[in-house]
């Protein structure tokens, strides 16, 4: 049936091309569009993203596939991009290891008429055709803040972590979370104006939490904007402080056991498969001339009604983990 359908589409496309050559470009079948996603490296996160792009290929018929460099070296991503430019693909999607370093190659690609769509690179959005983000950072942070307030029942002291003070996205989430708590749960107090740094390390998160528990015995909740909140949960567990609620950015492969035993009450992230699907589908829409504007449907969960602002397409795709659903995800 599927074969028949695609054959029909192909036949129709050929007929259309023959009948009206001027509109030929607009009637190319999806399978004729070569959309390539270059991910950062091979790990559970990007393996899940690959699943999304395989689904796009089977559902929409777009000739989309993923290329994975041997390591996280930006030079390898650029080499792959160069090769793709000379092969003349229709669109290149990339999750850049070093957004600034790919800019000259992005220019080369666009000069050659290739659509370039990035994911997780809002800083260079003005230089590419489109950047696709899973959500507006402030909304994601607010969701985390509300979870903190709800878990602590709106009372008591709380503390927040980020990976590092220089990490822009972590800081945006942190500020939005604190603002949301202040607005909805005015009885809660933040013990520090600035967040603590876990340096993107479970060990550091653990050690700092142990120090915090000693210095602030009345703490009711801790949240972590980096994915290393499992260190916080472990420390709370080891010190027998089950009354402290832990909320964190979470990756199932790292945090599943804590979410299941309740030492992490709320974990949130976004689904790499959906992000990959939406990014590549957006690239297909741009390459085929359909374009992506506010309200566009990128067909992936959370990206059905994107908001386009400053060349960035925002979805609303936060993924909240619970003890019941955590086993469904493998990234």
């Amino acid at each position, binding site marked *: 049936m599927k074969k028949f359908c695609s054959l029909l589409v192909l036949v129709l496309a050929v007929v259309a091309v023959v009948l009206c050559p001027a509109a030929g470009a607009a009637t190319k079948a999806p399978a004729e569009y070569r959309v390539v996603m270059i991910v950062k490296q091979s790990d559970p996160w990007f393996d899940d993203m690959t699943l999304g792009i395989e689904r796009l290929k089977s559902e929409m018929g777009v000739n989309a596939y993923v290329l994975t460099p041997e390591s996280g070296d930006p030079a390898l991503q650029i080499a792959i991009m160069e090769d793709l430019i000379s092969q003349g693909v229709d669109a290149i999607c990339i999750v850049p290891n070093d957004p*600034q370093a790919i800019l000259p*190659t992005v220019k080369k690609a666009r000069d050659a008429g290739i659509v370039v769509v990035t994911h997780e690179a809002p800083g260079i959005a003005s230089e590419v055709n489109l950047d696709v983000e899973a959500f507006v950072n402030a909304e994601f942070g607010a969701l985390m803040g509300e979870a903190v307030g709800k878990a602590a029942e709106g009372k008591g002291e709380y503390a927040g972590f980020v990976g590092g003070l220089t990490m822009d996205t972590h800081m945006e989430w942190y500020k939005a979370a604190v603002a949301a708590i202040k607005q909805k749960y005015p009885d809660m107090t933040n013990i520090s104006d600035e967040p603590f740094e876990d340096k993107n390390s479970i060990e550091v998160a653990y050690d700092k939490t142990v120090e915090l528990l000693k210095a602030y015995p009345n703490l009711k909740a801790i949240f972590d904007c980096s994915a290393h909140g499992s260190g916080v949960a472990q420390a709370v567990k080891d010190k027998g402080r089950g009354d402290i609620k832990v909320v964190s950015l979470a990756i199932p492969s790292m945090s599943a056991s804590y979410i299941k035993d309740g030492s992490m009450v709320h974990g949130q992230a976004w689904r790499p498969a959906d992000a990959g699907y939406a990014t590549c589908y957006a690239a297909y829409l741009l390459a085929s001339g359909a374009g992506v504007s506010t309200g566009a449907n990128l067909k992936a969960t959370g990206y059905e009604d994107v908001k386009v602002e400053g060349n960035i397409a925002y979805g609303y795709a936060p993924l909240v983990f619970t003890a019941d659903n955590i086993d469904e995800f493998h990234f």
Partner: protein
Amino acid sequence: MSNLASRRDHDLYILIGLTLVLAAVFAVVFGESMYSARNLRSMAYQMPEFGLLALGMMLAFLIGGIDLSIVAVANTSGIMTALVLTGVWLPGLSGYGVVAAAVATGLTAAVAFGLFNGFLIAKLSASPIIATLGTMTFYSGIGMALTGGKGITGLPSAFTSFGTAEMLGVPVIFVCFVAVAAALSAFLSRTALGRRMYLYGENPLAARFSAIDVERIGFWVYGVIGLLAGMSGHIVISRVNSAKVGYGDAYQLQALLVCVIGGIHPQGGRGKTLGVVCAVILMQMLSSAFTILRFSPYAKKLIWGSMLIVMLGLEYLSAKQNVRRELRQKIVH
């Protein structure tokens, strides 16, 4: 002696033949997607940065050493150049003055890094693999301290235009690479010093007893390696318009691989520049083919790794063969 030379050329012909055969096979299999003018030019843009690193590694191999710090030298020298270019260091310069000052700073630093390696290895007799492993961490640590791990961006176009410039349709950086390779080749085969480098690599003890100043040769060879690495670093930052610690880490293994495939004997004393150039082209063709074939990263790693082992195996077998042949000749005479 002439016997030895002809045997070496024999190995080189096999490599050139292999490259041509592979090129022909790819022409049949991939056709346009491999041999369009656009792809050839794209490959010419990609080769110089790791090609220069491979030439540096070749020099280390020739004198029986190794240099694991080349990528770190390239990176840190690029970072220093970028710091001058963006006016963080030596502010107040403008136009081509800043470019000249920046390149001078970067290359001087690169040579100094190289000479420090040479000092450790030649003067203090440190083991090359340990010494350069240490300096690798040390040099990239300097880069890390200078930048805090962040990228330096916004280099002036007077500098970056070098990375994209073309001469009669050929990238200027590729012309530079070929010129450097030709100069090295001439130096190694035509000058007395080049000859001494081979002798030093073949048998350092014998070289020492033949009144060859091995310390001084070793010291300066590592300096030249630093210079080559610095040039590569400059090409990198002009191509990507930014400098950052860790860029090009994957080139370390590639440079080693290119040398081994290019017939440079890891124990020193044997190999030709032309072999390395052939191997650089071979590697680039394979790497482009892997992208066309959509190989997974595991497959790529597996292939690079097994190539290294197979080449070392072949090297071993051919060396054994040669020893046998020579013995036989001696018995006959």
